Structure formats: C-alpha cells, structure tokens
C-alpha cells in the first residue's frame, strides 16, 4: 500500500493505517526530538504531541509536500516550543534548587575535546543548534531543514555556517586536535 493510500485511510479514521504511518516515521522524529532535548521523557512528549497534532490535522494535509516534510515541520515546532517551556520551567525552579547546586562539586577544570564539544553544542541557541543537529548529526539535507523550519534553503546553510563558526570559536583551544 502506498503512503498516499495510507494517508487516505488514516483520514477516514482507520487506526491501522495511522499506526503504519507512525511506524514509518517515528524513528526519525524521535531521534530528532531526543537529540534536541537530551531527555527521553521530554522527547517522548514531543513525539506524542507531534503525532497527535498530525493525525488531528491530517484532513488538512494537501499532499503538496511529502508527509515526512510536513511531519517534521510539526515536530520541529513542537520541539522548539518544548525547549522554551523547559527553559521557563527551569528558570522558575532555579531558586528552589539553588541551595543544592551550591553544594555540588565544581566542574572539572580541563574538559577534553568531547566534553567541550557537547558543552559548545548545548550553548548554541536552539535555532542554530537544530540546524547543526539535523544536518551534521542526523543527515538531513538543507532542503529538508528549510522545509521543516519554514526557512529558505539558503537560510539553513547560513545558519549552519554561523553555528559552525561559533563552535569553532568555542573549540579553538583544541584546534590542533580537530584540525588534524
């Protein structure tokens, strides 16, 4: 059965068709959500929300673009919203946990390249980080990234370039190591 047929059936409320569409796309959506959130519970929330929204709006899907493109445009919005919510939540919780944090041991003074890389990625603003994650870690094309984020392909490239420049700056102490 083609994807178009599955979509038609899912529109008619056939749960097996929905399940099949879910099985086809869930891996990439989950991977993207997990890469961005770094937490399984939040990633699962995002996936759930993405598919609930998608199935709810399937009647409005015209089929001009591939279903995966449409699904990813929902997923990226959901993920970015979730990260904003978490940030708000953590800002709110911060005073309550401040005492705990003060008692924690300080960070190791000399992180290695891998730790530095992880920290540098975490510090990128989300709209840069998502481009790096999609392109360099998950292998999306700029065309796909542009469609998912609702930006031009050129803007995706520009964001990636900017993000990499920021990473290069952060990783400059290790230049010898990564420049080879």
């Amino acid at each position: 059965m083609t994807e178009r047929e599955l979509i038609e059936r899912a529109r008619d409320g056939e749960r097996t068709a929905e399940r099949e569409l879910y099985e086809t796309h869930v891996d990439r959506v989950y991977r993207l959500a997990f890469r961005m959130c770094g937490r399984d519970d939040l990633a699962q929330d995002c996936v759930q929300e993405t598919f609930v929204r998608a199935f709810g709006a399937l009647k409005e899907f015209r089929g001009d673009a591939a279903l995966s493109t449409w699904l990813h445009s929902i997923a990226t919005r959901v993920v970015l919203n979730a990260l904003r919510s978490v940030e708000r939540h953590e800002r709110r919780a911060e005073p309550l946990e401040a005492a705990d944090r003060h008692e924690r041991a300080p960070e190791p003074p000399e992180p290695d390249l891998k730790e530095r890389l992880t920290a540098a990625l975490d510090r990128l603003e989300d709209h840069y980080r998502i481009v790096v994650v999609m392109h360099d870690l998950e292998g999306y094309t700029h065309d796909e990234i542009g469609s998912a984020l609702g930006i031009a392909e050129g803007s995706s490239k520009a964001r990636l370039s900017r993000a990499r420049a920021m990473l290069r700056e952060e990783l400059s102490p290790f230049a010898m190591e990564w420049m080879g």
Partner: protein
Amino acid sequence: MSEETRGHEPDEQPDERIGELLRRHAGLYHDPPATPRDAMWARIEAARGQAEGGGGGVIPLAPRWWLGALAIAAVLALGIALGRISMRQATERQGPAGSPVVEAPAEREPESGTARPGGEPGTEAAPVDLAVAEPEPEASPEAAPARVTPRPAADADRRAPSPEAPARATGSDLYRLASQQMLGQAEALLLQYRSDRAADRMDPTVGRWARDVLSSTRLLLDSPAADDPGMRALLQDLELVLAQIVQRTGQADPLDDAMIDRTIENRDLMPRIRGAIPAGVGAI
C-alpha cells in the same frame, strides 16, 4: 528521505572540518536510544482517546474561589495582628526590666474596635500601638472573626500552660488554619484544572484563581506557617505548579500542560495536599 539525499551534501562552507568532527563524534551528543515505539503509540492513543472523550461527566466547580481567597487573606491578616498583640502582651508581662513603657493594658485591647486614648503625652506606647492598629492589606472585616475566633480560644483552654500561652497558641493556630484553607483552595483549583484539561478547554477564571492562590501561598511561605519543614516543602512545590498554571493561561500549549501534570505527579502534590488538610477543612 532517500539514502541519496540523506548523505551530506558537498559543503562549500569553510567550517566543514567542524562538520566532520561533529559527524565523527555524533554518538557523543544526546545519542538516542532505541525508539520506544509501543510505549509512545500507547501514549498517543491515550491522548487522542482522552481528547475525543472530552472528559465527559466532570462537573466544573462554581467559580467562588474569590471567597476562599478573601477568607485566607483575612485569616492571615488576623494571624499577623494577633501575633503582634501576643508579642506585645508578653513584653508587657515581663515588666519594667526592659523599658518604662507599658501601663494600662486595657487601653490596648484591640477587640473593642474603639479608638484608643493613645497619643497621650508622656507614654511611649505609640510605636507598639501603631503596629497593632496598622491595617493589614486585604483584611476582611466580615470573614475573619466568624471563621477564626472559636478555635484559638478552645485550644488555649485546652493547653493553658502559662499566662502568655493562649495568645501564642492563637497565632500559630491561625496560621495553621490559614494554611489548611489555602491548601483546600489549591486542591479544588488543581481538580478544576485537571477536569478542564480532560475536557480540552480552560475556564478563564482558573488563571485568576491560580494567581490568588499563588499570592496566598507566597504569603504563607513568608509566615511562621512555613517554619515546619514539611509544610514549607509543600508550599514551595505548590508555588512552582501554581506559577506554571498562571504562566500557562492564555497561551495553551500541550507541552506546558504535560509539564504541569508531571510536576503534580512527580512531587506527589495531590496526596500531600490532602494529607495536610484534616477532614472537614476544604475549599471555601
């Protein structure tokens, strides 16, 4: 995406080496575990079922929350006032060792509600009296005495250990009562919030209600009611959830809702609230 397009495009960027580095170490950054397909599908089905079911049969609470908020504010205000009185009385009973201030305690009985003959030249009671007479914000003249007066008196009779004990017992009991009433309000609010969520709608009064309960919670956090570590922790957790609900209202976002739900669940908020409210005390 086809395998062809999944490959990385030829990159004209000068930072391609960074790209290579990232790809080489891709497994280090939030490497996803195996996709929990079945678990997530079950959640999706449950969420859709809940949305379609509309949480039927849940009867929304009447929005009389402001009565409760008013009563809580009144109880708090009275508690603060009585606390000050008790401190003053204790000071007076300690006698002249401190300062030559206090004579004629009857003049300062606040229950009379009449003007004191204070301000007489030669007395230095003015600062204390001013503190007592100072109107507390949000005090409600009709609600406070009716709800509060009998209980401290009964407690005071039971204990009666020393001359100053009744006044002290009165203050702490008032704070306890205020806490219980506020927790009753919070429980009702959270139930309302959950039933609205289940019905996929949100009563606009919930936001205002949450704001008022949040104000009361913060007042209590700054009061002797929070001296008890258990109560303090409960109030702090409640403050967090209420702040989330206040922030959420107006721009509904399912992820915000999920986070609120998780905070309520993870912190065992409902059982703890119910555990802190004795039978018979509930939302006003």
